[in-house]
């Protein structure tokens, strides 16, 4: 048995932001197995101070280019709670379409562009253009389609434009919506089914590893918890959103510019797998079929299966969007203006499931309508302690393998969380300390 192991993966690739994986084992004792977050700190909470409510979501969407929509919506919801702005049913449906579109986009990007190269032993998606052209083309089409959703509803998929506090500054036409629906049915579903086949064929490449942890997600008894709901912990059940601080319990560790979080245990997991474990019964029929096909059964304790849960959610999002478009078309698009007349000033807390997990924004506005205090708790941050705990269990289990294999498995583990590091430092890299 090996006594010493030093791994230091500097600036992990195919993740958003800068992180290092650091493993240090001496004489068989594991001293360190950590994900170091070295992304530059961003200080958004401080920058928000003194900004008026029109600017807040514009600013917070810039926390992360990949989760910009999630930040934008959570921010809008928190502002609306704080200022007492009611939104219309039409606005809510449009926002749900946006969440579906953003999750669809982000999950496809991760599962097919960032994670798949690992299963095929290549360094990026680019070589696959020659070896697996059909797959790449289908993946590109899916991503384009997902972005089309964002472009249509919010003007731009990255850093959305037209969703503002109280509603939308521009509305899609009924014709545009029905064209999108047509495309989702004719192109989206067949391409998604093809992607599922591809992932199914790679299922044996997914490492087998299990560690039961606490799974936390948004829960809503009417629908799969994305846009809104209460907090659900697999350990302690449902908790009101206003009590989020009792769950996140953020704390600072010296190896990470992103804060860590813990609740009932030393760590918890958020993201697609957590959502699946907590809300799988609420997936729509197409997604249920996909889960079955891919062998994903709740509860699942293998963090590598997070990627598979993402694929299941893609199917859910496509089908759900079609349903939401039908709702809009039945009602007809009403030419509504955003409701931007505050009825009060105070604190507003909101949560949304973004692709990487549960997100909280918490604002306090003063009487001039300016931000007095802001707090954002980001999913990747919440997952960091859980990643460290996974590594602590995983390293001794695979210690007999070569250093290359260990490194790869660790990288794949971190990547499975689809970490978004810019976000979490408002943060990813893998450093093996030498």
């Amino acid at each position, binding site marked *: 048995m090996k006594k010493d192991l030093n791994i230091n993966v500097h600036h992990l690739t195919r993740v958003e932001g800068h992180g290092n994986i650091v493993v240090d084992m001496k004489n068989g004792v594991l001293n360190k197995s950590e994900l170091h977050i070295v992304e530059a700190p961003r200080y958004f909470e401080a920058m928000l101070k003194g900004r008026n409510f029109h600017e807040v979501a514009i600013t917070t969407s*810039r926390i992360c*280019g990949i989760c910009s929509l999630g930040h934008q919506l959570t921010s809008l919801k928190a502002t609306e709670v704080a200022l007492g702005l009611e939104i219309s049913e039409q606005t809510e449906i449009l926002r749900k379409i946006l969440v579906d579109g953003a999750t669809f986009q982000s999950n496809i990007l991760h599962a097919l562009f960032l994670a798949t190269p690992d299963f095929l032993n290549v360094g990026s998606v680019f070589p696959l253009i020659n070896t697996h052209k059909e797959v790449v083309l289908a993946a590109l089409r899916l*991503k384009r389609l997902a972005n089309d959703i964002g472009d249509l509803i919010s003007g731009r998929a990255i850093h959305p434009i037209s969703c503002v506090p109280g509603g939308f500054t521009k509305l899609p036409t009924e014709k545009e919506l029905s064209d999108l629906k047509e495309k989702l049915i004719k192109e989206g579903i067949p391409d998604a089914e093809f992607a599922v086949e591809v992932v199914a064929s790679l299922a044996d490449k997914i490492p087998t590893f299990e560690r039961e942890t606490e799974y936390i997600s948004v829960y809503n008894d009417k629908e799969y918890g994305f846009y809104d709901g209460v907090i659900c912990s697999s350990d302690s059940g449902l908790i009101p959103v206003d009590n989020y601080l009792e769950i996140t319990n953020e704390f600072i560790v010296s190896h990470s510019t992103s804060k860590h979080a813990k609740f009932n245990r030393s760590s918890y997991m958020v993201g697609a797998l957590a959502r699946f474990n907590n809300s799988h019964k609420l997936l729509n029929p197409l997604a249920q079929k996909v889960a079955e096909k891919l062998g994903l059964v709740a509860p699942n304790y293998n963090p590598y299966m997070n990627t598979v849960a993402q694929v299941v959610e893609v199917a859910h999002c496509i089908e759900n969007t079609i349903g939401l478009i039908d709702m809009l078309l039945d009602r007809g698009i009403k030419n509504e203006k955003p409701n931007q007349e505050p009825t009060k000033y105070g604190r507003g807390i909101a949560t949304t499931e973004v692709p990487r997990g549960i997100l909280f924004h918490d604002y306090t506005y003063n009487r001039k309508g300016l931000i007095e205090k802001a707090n954002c708790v980001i999913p990747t941050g919440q997952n960091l302690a859980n990643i460290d705990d996974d590594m602590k269990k995983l390293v001794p289990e695979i210690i007999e393998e070569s250093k290359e294999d260990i490194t790869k498995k660790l990288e794949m583990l971190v990547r499975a969380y689809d970490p978004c590091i810019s976000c979490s430092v408002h943060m990813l890299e893998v450093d093996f300390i030498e």
Partner: protein
Amino acid sequence: MSKPKVAFFDFTSCEGCQLNKLNLENDLLSILELVDIVEFREAMDDKADEYDIAFIEGSISTPTCVERIHDIRRRTKILVALGACAVNGGINAMKNLYPADWVKEEVYGEDKYLFPSIPVQPVSALVKVDYEIRGCPMSTPEFLHVLKSLVLGRKPESFDYAVCVECKLKENECVLDKGMFCLGPISRAGCDAICPSNGQYCTGCRGLVSNINENGAVDMLKQHGFSEKEALNRMRLYCANDIEN
């Protein structure tokens, strides 16, 4: 002619500009015909020693960033600053408006000493920048324009006129006339007035037009019902390093 070697690097930013490139789905294959992407951490493992064109996203805000940017400059023939953060500090530069200690404490409390952070600077403050692609996020047509121009070996077009120009070409209803705030009259174009075209106001993400009449701009916003303080505060959202008073 051999294909130019292109690399992408990210500094302090949201990485939205890079993601925007991955969102060029329809053109991605043609782009790969045109250039060799040799380094792009967000999407691939490969690394290279030298590049013809390096695209830099993000602003410089830590001592390690400083070293990295100098290193990249040494390895590349052409360096392009990509997006607001790289070009003028972008939204990150708002941090510079507050005392550094206060900012760190506000976020990290008593653990603030753990993380070194320096004032946010644009890439051009440290190394020579050959070309700029502005915007938050960068606009993909402009990115393609710059990429194609560089492949052709020509200087890309730049935009030193106001967003109002593009907004008028699109015949949008004026945002200021609707009683909203707007920085279109003094902010750099090149975005095809995307925000006003979507009913939203211009936030000035591409920076201010050079040579602007700053007093006139504040007076203009005052006439539309915004106090001087608010006008300047909102101009600073993306231009914290550029507004003087």
